[in-house]
């Protein structure tokens, strides 16, 4: 392995911490976690290959116990901003070179802030709510409703779409699809079905209800959307349910461009928001009740964002809203509202997508990925997680003598149902990879795999 594995000190092993510990230990990093909740330690113990120390993240004796010398990273993701900030300072004093801290407060990044990240010695500030809000805003600004991720400097994109019963792709095997539709290049790189994620192979069949993720050239996207039946509708208005950190931030980011309604259950919070958000219409009520939704004008909106603090409410409300719109008398055929649900439990991610929520965002995963991207810098050119399934898209360069450069792709072992090489950059242009593509050393490659197999993918491409 050309890349040295890092020693990482992790403070807090709750949602984000656990996700990070799992992912990072899988990549071979040495993780030491300090957590003050013994129940949490018991739950995580046996799930993660990490040293778990029971103690207070702020106690010097706990830091001495774990031995801070030789640590390469501090990741402070306890649920307390102050602890995370202070521990970065502590880490700086103890000589840990790189510090990552989760800070929910927005103040630190503001222009002319009293205290800046530099003052606090934090190299990367992670703000899960902000990441989620920005992501939602980005998604809504994309022309088409479905998720699109830019790759290869924008030359290629991955589009996610749901297969409906009447879709031309339904009940077809992948190899038949690629034979039948060959006017332009595209490749199905991942399928979310139920709670499973499939890295599809030629013999896999597309079923109605699947969420498929398709890689194609950016210029071909309109044709692809036509093929998969994605309506290229315009986005008029949106309703946000839940005025927490994410909900209010989304409203703030979007209220200039769209008419935004925000439903908040708590009167005081609603009043507070009405001062803060000038252009947003703040409504007070329970967003999971049908009558509240109807009174808020649900039937006329195009996007519903569920961002309450409760996973189940978010999922159920988005499904409910979708059905209300579809079933209303005299609804225009083919017109569908999009829903974006904020879901923090990994188990629910793919499930929520299959149940009918169009986009499912997990702010912990977003935050985790941001951190992993930071740690992986240099190793991988870029990393993106596909929403709603456990799949990663990675760009990296093939080393001379790497296993993948020895044979054409269909002969390279250990890839079946695990890893797809989606595209290769050579001679100044991106090519969609096919079975007889032979990756040469120095080629830039886009690989797609489940997050568990990122390491295998790396092994294929490194000498």
């Amino acid at each position, binding site marked *: 392995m050309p890349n040295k594995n890092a*020693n990482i000190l992790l403070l807090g092993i709750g949602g984000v911490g656990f996700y990070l510990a799992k992912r990072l*230990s899988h990549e*071979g990093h*040495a*993780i030491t976690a300090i957590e003050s909740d*013994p129940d949490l330690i018991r739950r995580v113990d*046996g799930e993660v*290959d*990490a040293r*778990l120390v029971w103690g207070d993240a702020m106690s010097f004796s706990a830091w001495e116990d774990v031995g801070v010398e030789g640590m390469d990273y501090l990741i402070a993701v306890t649920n307390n901003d102050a602890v995370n900030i202070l521990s970065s300072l502590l880490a700086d004093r103890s000589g840990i070179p790189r510090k990552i801290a989760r800070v929910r407060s927005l103040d630190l990044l503001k222009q002319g802030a009293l205290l800046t990240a530099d003052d606090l010695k934090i190299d990367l500030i992670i703000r899960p709510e902000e990441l989620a809000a920005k992501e939602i805003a980005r998604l809504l600004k994309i022309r088409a409703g479905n998720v699109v991720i830019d790759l290869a400097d924008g030359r290629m994109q991955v589009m996610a779409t749901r297969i409906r019963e009447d879709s031309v792709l339904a009940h077809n095997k992948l190899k038949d699809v690629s034979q039948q539709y060959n006017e332009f290049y595209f490749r199905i790189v991942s399928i979310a079905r139920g709670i499973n994620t499939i890295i599809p192979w030629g013999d896999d069949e597309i079923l109605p209800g699947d969420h498929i993720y398709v890689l194609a050239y950016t210029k071909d996207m309109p044709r692809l959307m036509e093929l998969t039946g994605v309506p290229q509708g315009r986005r008029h208005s949106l309703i946000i349910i839940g005025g927490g950190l994410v909900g209010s931030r989304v409203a703030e980011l979007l209220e200039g461009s769209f008419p935004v309604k925000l439903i908040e259950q708590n009167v005081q919070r609603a009043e507070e928001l009405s001062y803060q958000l000038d252009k947003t219409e703040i409504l007070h009520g329970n967003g999971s009740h049908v009558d509240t939704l109807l009174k808020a004008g649900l039937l006329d909106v195009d996007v519903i964002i569920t961002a309450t603090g409760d996973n189940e409410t978010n999922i159920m409300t988005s499904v409910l809203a979708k059905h209300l719109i579809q079933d209303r008398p005299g609804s225009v055929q083919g017109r569908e509202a999009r829903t974006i649900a904020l879901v923090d439990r990994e188990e629910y991610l793919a499930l929520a997508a299959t149940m009918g929520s169009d986009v499912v965002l997990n702010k912990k995963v977003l935050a985790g990925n941001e951190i992993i991207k930071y740690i992986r810098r240099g190793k991988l050119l870029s990393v993106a997680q596909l929403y709603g399934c456990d799949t990663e898209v990675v760009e990296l360069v093939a080393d001379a003598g790497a296993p993948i450069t020895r044979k054409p792709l269909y002969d390279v072992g250990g890839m079946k149902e695990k890893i797809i090489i989606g595209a290769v950059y050579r001679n100044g242009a991106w090519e969609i990879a096919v079975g007889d593509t032979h990756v040469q050393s120095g080629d830039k490659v886009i690989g797609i795999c489940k997050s568990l197999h990122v390491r295998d993918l790396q092994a294929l491409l490194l000498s």
Partner: protein
Amino acid sequence: MNPRSIAYVMGTLLSVTAVAMILSAICSLCYGNEGDLAAILISAAISGVIGFPIRRIFRHDHDLNIKDAFVIAAFGWVIVSAVSALPFVIHRSIPCFTDAFFEMMSGYTTSGATILTDIEVVPHGLLFWRSETHLLGGMGFLTLTIIFLPHGMGGARIFRAESSPGQVITRERFLARNRDAIVVLWIIYLILNLVQIGLLCAGGMSLFDSLCHAFGTVSTSGFSPYNASIGHYDNAYFDWIIILFMFLGGVTFMLFYHLARGDWRVLRVNTEFRWYVGFMLVFCGAVTLILWGEGTYDFANALRHGTFQVTSLLTTTGFTTQDYELWPQAAQMFLFAVCFIGACAGSTTSGIKVIHYVVIWKFMVAAIKRIFLQPLSVASVRINNRPIDQSIIDLAVCYFIVNIFLVLGGGCFMALVDDMDYLSAMSSVIATLMNIGPGFGSVGPSENYAHISDIGKWFLAWNMLVGRLEMFSALVIFYPSFWRR
């Protein structure tokens, strides 16, 4: 259950066994092939031919869940023992497979119980192989294979399934990655072996004997290439060296790591180490005083033999220098009691660890006080200056009870299937379950296990496995729900 991943680990186990046999083949060559070279090479070939291809075929499968880990822990040892028995069966120095399997299970589980009546006629290559199983088993044979597994939870799960509940008590790992921790443990273990080999050679023991005895000492196992065990030499220097290294083999290996880093504070903080030293002093002192007081030996010899025997039984090693059944009854009683005590958790020893006694004792004191004396009292059980979890107390108590059940139940079983007195029956179970080796009565220091029936041998071999896996991993596979989907 992931059969493919299990097969991968099993393949790895067999591959490691095959490679390990090469060492014995070299030893056999050094002694000019006393007829055992072919047997060893054939066995190595069989194990390699099965192991390497399986490992290769399933090399992409290493997702293990906790059940897989238990299956591997329970059956891995059986398969490895069966394969390791081949050299003896092929060479016909132990013609019966049951006997050879018993001998190898005893080797890998570091018990040291033998069925060989005349050990000295066995060729050197095979004797070396017999002791080498101690070397491999001392740190846990499966931990060795974990080093060859890829990163991820699989290795950690096997480690958990194989290693002691005692380690759950001192739960904290000293290194972040499981594999690093295992590598460090193996390095410490090998260094201890090397130092002891050096010291024994310096005292004039031949290289072959020092190797075999060091392998048997640090792993606290107890196979010796001589019929009279360490008594063969009757040399005080060797006795004291072996006492020292049996003691060190019984210390939590993590402590060596901290000491090597110059952190002597851990000795003071570590509750278990202090109790371990305390147990040693009390029992060695008592047995020495009895031997001296009754006039069995003069003081120097009473100290030497008393300390040797107590250390040997307490650390579950099972070397002998004297036939302790000829000692006064009081001394025998103390030795019998010592059999129930293992050394520290996270060492090479088996049996009921000192830490279990510490936890049970502190819990008992607090519980009696709360129930009968002061209902309002709140007393937390503290280990290493930290309060421990209720679940750990439950585990320690449960572990103790299971041991007692198995000793009593096993004793009844042995008395039924074999024609032996109750003391021998019970002590054969204690000696195998605690991985000690020699016991009392017809399995005493001057006897061996050859006379026991086949059923008895299989049962005792199973006992050794259960003892080595520290009960729960070996017992959990008997729950019907374990096998249900």
